[in-house]
């Protein structure tokens, strides 16, 4: 049984003043998140990441489709028992202290007073905020708020933790702290599902990622897999006779770039041998041969560019 199973989830919002027309912000999302994995949910702002998370946490209601959390339909009490949620740009009651907040939230779970105290202390420690227990939340920095947010999310030791942009607006120290917390969660065997648009974080933490663009899922899989398809080598050659340029071009993925007498191109790995042969037999000088550091960012932008050519997702109203 998957930790999170999403089937054809869609969400329309009515837009407009007089005649409300539905605007589809999430279109037919289907996704499975396995137990124990750290799953990154990527996309630019407005792609539908937060919408998905709000659907999973029952804050908004789906227009179409279903989702299950450990087999329980979203919105049911059992589903809530199993998840912990950190909202984007969290705001907690600023008139409460950290301790009071955790104590308050812990009352929504079946815990004895002893267990309650224990858990509050533990999560506070894990978040590194023990010395701030009696400080009012209004005095917390953004990084501290994110950390207390994660603390309240794991208060009841859920199997699945949902984090919405946990790293947003943090300084490098804050980012590192949150990253460590996520790794801690992973080593405790929890499933972590978090959304972000900071790709380097996703690269560092995630087992798998899904990419959302304009409400549609455009890519999902292990990072290594996704990037391998696109990896290759960067070659710079000199003194290539003009007649041979087309042959050189055929080996490359993208058009060659010229600067002076140098030609630069990107070729997939399997064409390397052919290239070397070509250079050797034609006295083309090979200046450099480097593996392409094809990052997630590149993949991301590629994907988005190709998807931009597609039309807007159809809404329930004007589909079929």
């Amino acid at each position: 049984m998957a930790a999170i199973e999403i089937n054809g989830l869609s969400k329309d919002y009515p837009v407009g003043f007089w005649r409300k027309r539905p605007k589809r912000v999430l279109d037919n999302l289907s996704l499975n998140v396995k137990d124990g994995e750290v799953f990154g949910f990527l996309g630019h702002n407005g792609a539908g990441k937060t919408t998905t998370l709000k659907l999973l946490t029952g804050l908004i209601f789906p227009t179409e489709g279903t989702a299950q959390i450990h087999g329980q339909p979203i919105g049911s009490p059992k589903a809530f028992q199993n998840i912990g949620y950190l909202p984007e740009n969290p705001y907690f009651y600023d008139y409460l202290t950290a301790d009071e907040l955790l104590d308050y939230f812990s009352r929504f779970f079946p815990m004895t007073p002893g267990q309650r105290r224990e858990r509050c202390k533990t999560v506070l420690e894990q978040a590194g905020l023990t010395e701030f227990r009696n400080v009012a939340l209004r005095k917390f920095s953004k990084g501290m708020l994110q950390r207390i947010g994660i603390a309240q999310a794991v208060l009841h030791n859920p199997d699945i933790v949902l984090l919405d942009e946990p790293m947003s607006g943090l300084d490098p120290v804050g980012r590192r702290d949150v990253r460590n917390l996520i790794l801690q969660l992973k080593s405790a065997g929890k499933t972590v599902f978090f959304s972000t648009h900071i790709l380097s974080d996703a690269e560092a933490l995630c087992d798998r990622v899904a990419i959302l663009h304009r409400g549609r899922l455009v890519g999902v899989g292990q990072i290594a897999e996704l990037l391998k398809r696109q990896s290759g080598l960067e070659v710079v050659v000199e003194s290539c006779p003009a007649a041979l340029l087309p042959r050189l071009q055929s080996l490359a993925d993208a058009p060659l770039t010229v600067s002076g007498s140098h030609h630069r191109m990107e070729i997939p790995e399997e064409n390397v041998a052919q290239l070397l042969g070509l250079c050797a037999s034609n006295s083309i000088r090979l200046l450099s041969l480097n593996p392409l550091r094809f990052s997630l960012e590149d993949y991301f932008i590629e994907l988005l560019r190709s998807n931009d050519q597609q039309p807007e997702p159809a809404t329930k109203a004007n589909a079929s």
Partner: protein
Amino acid sequence: MIVAQTLAIARNTFREAVRDKVLYNLVAFAVIMTASALLFGEISIGIQKSILINIGLSSISVFGLLIAIFLGIGLVYKEVDKRSLYALLSKPVHRWQFIVGKFLGLNLTLLVNTLFMSLGLWASMYYLTRGFQPEDIHIWTAIYFVLLELFLITAVCLFFSCFSTPILSAIFTFLIYIVGNSASDVRDFGKLTENATLEWLATLVYYLLPNFSDFSAAGLVSHGLPVPGHLVLLNTSYALCYSGILVIAAVWIFSRRDLK
């Protein structure tokens, strides 16, 4: 579990109100108002006491109303707007518990405030008459009625807070309070027109609006008269019924709402 959760929300709402400094200003004002009634030095003692009671009860009522509106308009709206609600609703708690908890918390706040303001009134009365009469006990009934009135007002406020911005909620609640106080006049207007349809309409509106004039017992108790027992029972039932309607409607609206 459900009760414990709802009470936790109520307690937290109370805590929030208590830590809000504006509250204390309003309470202080109310006490000052009551004390100022003592400055009607020119009038004879008999009427002075009755005026004191009238001003005192009116202050408690009006300031209670202001506090109720002030705290009530943000009750739901603030949590939705600032998104503190997100963390809460992702826990195994129903949306209706949230609404009911907030409602109870606000009422608890008003109860405590009213008690404080009442103490101001009693203190002023003691200062004036240097002693209490047996019929003064009826003033507590009048204060109870004020509490019922505030109970109803918080329900109105809560209802609006579920779908409306704070400013609009405040305006609507205030308007309903004013019209609700003149509810019987609305019906009398209808009787004055000789048109059967208009009269029927006016009567319908009369029963639709919350009738706040039911709760004014100042006239009786300021003259030392008791409030009939039936009335206490009836008013309590009315407040419960009508608030029930509003809270259920609020829960209904809120449960179906997509949170922004």
